[in-house]
């Protein structure tokens, strides 16, 4: 097999065109270390991607105890052998010289290396002291969307039933909380309705705030292959930037940031006005249509045009496209989830599919996407602000099920209020009521909004911070105890992607030094804390990935995310979509093929919330509104954004991703090809806006908001005027100051400038709605800078 051509230059690879309704052809991508050939590889170990949410299946190449490359799995349903740039090159990060290899503790203000007993002993001593002094409410756990299912489930049990705190959430709060919440609001329960195979069948694909070309390169390759084949789908793109998706779209709407609800209400208005609705489907499967129709009646394209700054005619064309589709696939991502009125907007996309009756059939798919590889596992295992198995904290029967499973009294599992979300966990820490914060596999000192505030919270003397990671991240530098973790390829467990496909990742090589799998660290803590069940047996009875997976299977039984038909052995053959039971061993490509399955008051994960205030709906109210468990069509009124432009801050700041990096570059920044492709932060303005501000391409500028400032080189690109874009990946670990900006104040992390504000329904922070100004710091040097010629990303 030939080495895959440079995927930095061409992130999506060669086309394999195909016709609607036919299988997506395979194309196997391969990249090995220089000098290594395929026949020199000693073992191929099954794995899936952890550098994005697509769940691309691959084999890790191992030679002489080292990872020497990767090869896509041609037989797998998700990627049919393809791999994106981050997967082809990202494995090299495992072997970085600066991996953490020993635990560290803070002594006299400095971190120094120690052994595991010392580090764990310090955590356990502090835990016992806090339990005595303040109780479980003093503990917060902040995890990630990048660990494995077995690890999340173990963490959920030890936090919820061991410590007994409900302050446990993941950084999935930043990437996927709105997807989960929107599904709960509409379908009563989390669970992705659609399947990636819907791309093979759709005649229309609508991407709402989803730059698929950069977030899921392999999924976009699938769309490109349809576009290159016979009877290609028509594309609608909603994005303020002219992304690669926008360039291929028949209709591109670039709304003013923060106005998604107005735009979506107008699209619903058009679909209803044109009579493009499926009355029979609505009648059988939904409640609330009359209210929705009344709410959008006045939301004409003209009305929305004035709010969104999009031509009314373009909205009408988009409405025509959506109304005329016979097989409509919609995808939604951060342009909606991280913007003003996040859940309210995402729910309107659900509504679009329900009123058009486009659900549960090939090509009629709805994908509320994820940003991270195992975000789905964080959600289903209850390591985010939910209970395990999509159980409802307001439903005592659901809590009793968990209590029986864990053999603890129900009152030991906090359920007097919803599990605390990440932004509130940091608020409690700021206020001093959370006094121990255990952060695993994430980097809030770069990824949360308003970083000066986050750094000051983490640096507090009264807060004991534990950080478990691969590298000494910006956050780890602020910790009291640092625990070295094993990486992808150094441990075993499963991971579930955005379309419910479960993959097994097996251990290929040993972790460096004394680094340990996250699962082992959690199990060690549980053992040292001696958590007991109500018969004085150990609370956690599993001891390795397989036994943890089996414990999870019992927890998932009978719930939408049922894993009881999945085994490690079966996963070695390829990915399987849950729910998968012994009766349905092939898994489930699409949910809701036969009506709405999980919205019944006794089954549902949530009774819903107010779309504006986030106030909870009471069980009795839900029961009377939706006694038969249909989908709920929830209308939402448009509200002006919380922070708008002013003469002092005339632009709107949005942040986002580049195809070459993941999260805070902890791994991708240590990969030569990826780092070289996007080595430093930049800012984007439209050429017209740049001219208006007196700026030119390559100038060093400052982007400032009332919170802080970022310094970056300007790139002029095709996008909305009045909007400035910053990539969110860059931090300080590879700068002299280490975890913060140098003393002059302006930083490199986009989140120096972002606002602390979150959607009241999903609690997802809003990274895409705040006011900013730009100023010139220095003109571009007269000598031409070496410019990379990468086609992806944001270059014009």
């Amino acid at each position, binding site marked *: 097999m030939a080495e895959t051509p440079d995927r930095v230059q061409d992130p999506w690879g060669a086309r394999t065109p195909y016709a609607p309704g036919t299988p997506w052809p395979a194309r196997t991508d391969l990249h090995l270390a220089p000098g290594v050939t395929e026949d020199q590889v000693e073992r191929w170990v099954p794995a899936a991607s952890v550098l994005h949410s697509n769940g691309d299946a691959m084999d890790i190449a191992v030679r002489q105890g080292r990872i020497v490359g990767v090869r896509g799995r041609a037989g797998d349903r998700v990627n049919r052998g393809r791999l994106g740039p981050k997967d082809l090159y990202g494995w090299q990060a495992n072997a970085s010289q600066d991996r953490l290899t020993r635990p560290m503790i803070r002594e006299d203000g400095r971190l120094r290396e120690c052994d595991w007993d010392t580090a764990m002993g310090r955590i356990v001593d502090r835990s016992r002291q806090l339990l005595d002094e303040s109780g479980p409410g003093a503990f917060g756990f902040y995890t990630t969307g990048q660990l494995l299912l077995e690890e999340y489930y173990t963490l959920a049990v030890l936090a919820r039933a061991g410590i007994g705190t409900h302050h446990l959430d993941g950084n999935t709060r930043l990437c996927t909380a709105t997807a989960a919440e929107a599904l709960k609001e509409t379908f009563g329960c989390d669970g992705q309705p659609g399947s990636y195979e819907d791309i093979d069948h759709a005649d229309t694909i609508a991407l709402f705030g989803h730059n698929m070309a950069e977030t899921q390169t392999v999924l976009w390759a699938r769309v490109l292959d349809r576009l290159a084949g016979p009877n290609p789908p028509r594309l609608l793109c909603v994005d303020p930037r002219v992304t690669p998706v926008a360039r291929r779209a028949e209709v591109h709407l670039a709304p003013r940031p923060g106005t998604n609800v107005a735009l979506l209400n107008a699209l619903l208005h058009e679909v209803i006005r044109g009579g493009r609705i499926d009355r029979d489907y609505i009648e059988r499967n939904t409640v609330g249509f009359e209210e929705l129709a009344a709410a959008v009646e006045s939301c004409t394209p003209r009305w929305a045009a004035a709010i969104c700054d999009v031509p009314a005619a373009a909205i009408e064309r988009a409405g025509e496209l959506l109304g005329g589709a016979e097989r409509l696939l919609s995808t939604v991502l951060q342009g909606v989830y991280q913007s003003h009125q996040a859940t309210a907007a995402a729910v309107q996309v659900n509504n679009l599919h329900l009123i058009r009756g486009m659900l549960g059939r090939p090509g009629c798919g709805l994908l509320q996407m994820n940003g991270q590889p195992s975000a789905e596992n964080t959600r289903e295992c209850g390591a985010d602000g939910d209970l395990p198995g999509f159980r409802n904290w307001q439903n005592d029967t659901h809590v009793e099920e968990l209590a029986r499973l864990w053999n603890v009294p129900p009152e030991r599992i*906090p359920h*007097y*209020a919803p599990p605390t979300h990440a932004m509130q966990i940091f*608020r409690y820490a700021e*206020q001093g*009521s959370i006094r121990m914060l255990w952060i695993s596999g994430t980097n809030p000192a770069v990824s949360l909004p308003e970083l000066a505030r986050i750094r000051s919270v983490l640096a507090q003397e009264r807060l004991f911070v534990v950080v478990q990671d691969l590298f000494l991240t910006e956050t780890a530098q602020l910790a009291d105890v640092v625990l070295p973790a094993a990486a992808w390829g150094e441990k075993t467990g499963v991971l579930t992607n955005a379309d419910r496909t479960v993959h097994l990742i097996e251990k290929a090589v040993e972790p460096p030094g004394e680094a340990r799998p996250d699962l082992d660290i959690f199990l060690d803590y549980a053992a040292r804390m001696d958590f007991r069940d109500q018969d004085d047996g150990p609370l956690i009875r599993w001891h390795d990935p397989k036994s943890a997976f089996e414990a999870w299977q019992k927890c998932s039984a009978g719930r939408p995310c049922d894993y009881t038909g999945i085994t490690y052995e079966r996963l070695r053959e390829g990915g399987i979509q849950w729910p998968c039971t012994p009766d349905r061993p092939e898994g489930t490509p699409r949910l809701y093929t036969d009506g709405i399955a999980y919205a019944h008051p006794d089954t549902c994960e949530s009774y819903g919330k107010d779309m*504006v*205030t986030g*106030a909870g709906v009471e069980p009795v109210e839900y029961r009377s509104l939706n006694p038969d468990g249909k989908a709920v069509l929830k209308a939402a009124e448009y509200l002006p954004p919380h922070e708008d432009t002013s003469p002092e801050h005339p632009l709107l700041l949005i942040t986002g991703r580049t195809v070459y990096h993941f999260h805070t570059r902890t791994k991708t920044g240590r990969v030569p090809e990826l780092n070289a492709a996007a080595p430093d932060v930049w800012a984007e303005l439209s050429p017209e806006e740049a001219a208006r501000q007196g700026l030119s391409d390559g100038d060093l500028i400052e982007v400032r908001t009332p919170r802080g400032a970022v310094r970056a080189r300007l790139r002029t690109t095709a996008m909305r005027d009045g909007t400035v874009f910053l990539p969110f990946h860059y931090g300080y670990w590879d700068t002299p100051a280490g975890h913060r900006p140098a003393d002059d104040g302006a930083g490199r992390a986009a989140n120096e400038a972002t606002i602390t504000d*979150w959607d009241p329904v999903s609690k997802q922070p809003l990274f895409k709605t705040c006011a900013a100004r730009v100023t010139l710091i220095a003109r571009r040097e007269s000598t031409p800078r070496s410019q990379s010629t990468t086609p992806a990303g944001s270059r014009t």
Partner: protein
Amino acid sequence: MTGITTTLKELHRGERDLEHDLLAAAERHRADHEFHHVATDVARWSREHTRRLAEAGRAYGLDLGGPADNPTPGALAALREKAAEALGRRPEAGLLLLHDLRELHLAATRNSLHWEMLAQAAQAARDERLLELASVCHPRTLRQIRWTNTMLKELSPQLLLTVR
């Protein structure tokens, strides 16, 4: 003066006060970001109610006046914001927030009862316009009540147990 005009006047005052109290509390609790933003959002509903009540009052010969002028973010407001941020680090700020939520909840409940009375009277008097007004506004008042109740429910365990 009939019972309806008395109720209109009291409700008008109640909505006007609630807008003011929501905005004042929003400013006081800037460090509690969700409360700050949502309080500002739902204050807009009370403002709208005040305006519509003033309009409706004209038919009853009442001159109720529009909503209060929006407080301009002057030097004093900036000072209060700074103070709110500094105080936000202290556990006692949590107790003050619970107190404010309770007061807002009671004020909204008072308004809700007035809307209920008005709607009942409008039905009896077959006053379509007044009934329409109450049926548009009252649900939002109920949402203000539910919101303050939800916030209290979620915040109380942490704030009451950990402040010593």
